[in-house]
């Protein structure tokens, strides 16, 4: 999957007022069993979007007509806790979400989302609740505006809220950088570190050196 840049997003937001939503609920184990990095949208919240007989549950927020086009998900604290499955981020992205706003995230998901063009925005609980109230009162009419360079969210009524993403992650999303290429810009630092570290903590390595790859030749001793 090609990486998508995230700069500014103006979109409908769907309120999922549940706490501690785990990644098993976001993408159940039954839905992640293919060796691939895409095509997981159908499995998103599978057991919540569907009733026992496999039909859609009309009461689930994402099945409501006013939220079907939502690209922003509003969630409760500790969103996407639990299993490290990156498929949780892929499923949200594949379904059409570009941003999740919550008071806190599972740390592993937070990191996974950043690498997949899915912006995780942390706002205080009362601010997320207020946006949920506003969105519900407007029945999905009116959009949120998420501005990553400015690190602001504007609610449908125009209330502006500030959030923070560490600089290096923010820039990587804006530029749609491949994380490995971005880090390999610092290969000299990595080589220097290992040369120092192999003297300081030789026991942490197995043998003098066997680093692979021509770019990483490290001088012995």
């Amino acid at each position, binding site marked *: 999957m090609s990486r998508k840049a995230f700069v500014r997003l103006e979109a409908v937001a769907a309120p999922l007022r549940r706490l501690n939503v785990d990644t098993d609920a976001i993408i*159940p184990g039954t839905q992640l069993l293919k060796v691939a990095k895409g095509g997981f949208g159908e499995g998103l919240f599978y057991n919540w979007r569907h009733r026992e007989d496999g039909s859609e549950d009309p009461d689930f927020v994402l099945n409501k007509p006013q939220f079907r086009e939502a690209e922003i998900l509003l969630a409760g604290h500790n969103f996407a*806790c639990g299993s490290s499955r990156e498929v949780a981020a892929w499923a949200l992205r594949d379904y059409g979400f570009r941003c999740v706003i919550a008071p806190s995230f599972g740390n*592993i998901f937070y990191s996974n989302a950043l690498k997949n063009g899915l912006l995780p925005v942390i706002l205080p609980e009362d601010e997320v609740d207020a946006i949920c109230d506003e969105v519900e009162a407007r029945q999905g009419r009116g959009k949120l505006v998420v501005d990553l360079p400015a690190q602001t969210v504007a609610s449908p009524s125009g209330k502006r809220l500030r959030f923070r993403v560490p600089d290096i*992650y923010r820039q990587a999303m804006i530029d749609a950088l491949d994380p*490995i290429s971005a880090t390999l810009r610092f290969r000299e630092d990595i080589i220097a570190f290992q040369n120092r570290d192999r003297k300081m903590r030789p026991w942490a390595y197995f043998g003098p050196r066997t680093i692979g790859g021509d770019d990483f030749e490290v001088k012995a001793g």
Partner: protein
Amino acid sequence: MNAPRNMLDKIWDDHIVRDFGDNTCLVHVDRAFLHELAAIAFSSLKEAGRPILSPELTFATVDHLLDTYRGRGDATLIPNGADFIRQLRAGARETGVGFFDIDDPEQGIVHVMAPEQGIALPGTIFVCCDSHTSTIGGVGAMAWGIGTTDIEHAMATGCLVQTKPLSMRVRFEGRRPSGVTAKDMILALIGQISADGGNGYAIEYAGEAVEALSIEERLTICNMSIELSARAGFVAPDERTFAFLKEKPYAPKGAQWDAAVDYWRTLSSDTDARFDREVVIDCARLSPQVTWGTSPEHVIGVEDAIPDPSLAPTSREQESRRRAINYMGVSPGQKIAGLSLDAVFIGSCTNSRLNDLREAASILRGRKVAPGLMAICSPGSGETKRRAEAEGIDRIFTEAGFQWREPGCSLCMSGGAGGEAFPEHARVLSSTNRNFENRQGRNVRSHLGSPAMVAASAVAGRITDPRSLA
């Protein structure tokens, strides 16, 4: 004079490759571990033409998808499991990373076998594409779970970009009463500070009761750090840690060992070190813990009643507890002890080590599981299984009516993936870490407890205080 540092500061400082500001650094990864669900990392790197920086620091095993029946092979009850297993094997062979295959005598759950083999060491940064990697902190490592993109990054660059976590110290003070296990200590902590209570923190577990724990018990405590949403959890290495690791196959030897121990002794938090948050748990007041709901924070003492959701502090909290009560088929005010069980499970990276099996066996010896109850035990690794069998523990389990399986994540994970599962709507008491909806099978109601509680409850056929059978 240098400012006092805590253990997180010390490990972090010694791994900084480059500082990006905003508390975010490129940090060196000392060990990267893969399992079959991350098999795509190998093909993905290959397609991008990227070699693994340090294959000798990279390892892989099979644990998540493979069956636990005797005579198992690549084909799994979980659909497509063989695709993952074969791709992992092919990737490991091609790149030369250490691989513990299905038929390897040391194969096992990553977080059980990596410490057993001495692959996990104090003061190292250890990552694996599994959330319970926090377990490894039990030997004094800083260890956390990552996704596929990050494991590829760690393999290709030997590093990860990370924001330094906040520091929390949890002190378990006093002595734990007999019958109270490491599992009860960590469940009680989750109940006290919530499933979101560790979010953003790396937790150092300390205090008299933690110092008194075996390494296996420390691994159990650190395992469930992720159920607090903590980034990592660890215990400062001490003489017990060194004794545990000495002579392990992958542990340093000779002069390297001595140098390692000298370094490891410097890792403990300085006396005046500061923490962003401190929590104290009084162990003397703990009783065996068991969960009633669908989050590990839904936990009470075994003698307690299921709490009334309307007493929760916020309306969201109340709604969340109502959903849990509904899913679990329990009622507010109902005593948890005495709930009738359909099945029990002893296994997983939380509680499948030799001490766990011994603890359960001491209760099962000479007893039988209740008629009609499904009872399964899956030891955490080949080594654990062999040692348990050498002690006759397998016979105690099978004579009591337990199935004695091969090592793997088994019913902690497969039930949610269409593999080995408990029957629909079954009520299960499990020594695992997650009581999430559908985790152990469709609509299965999972309660979490210690191996001792699982054994006692298996005999009674209902949730039972293990102290009544000890």
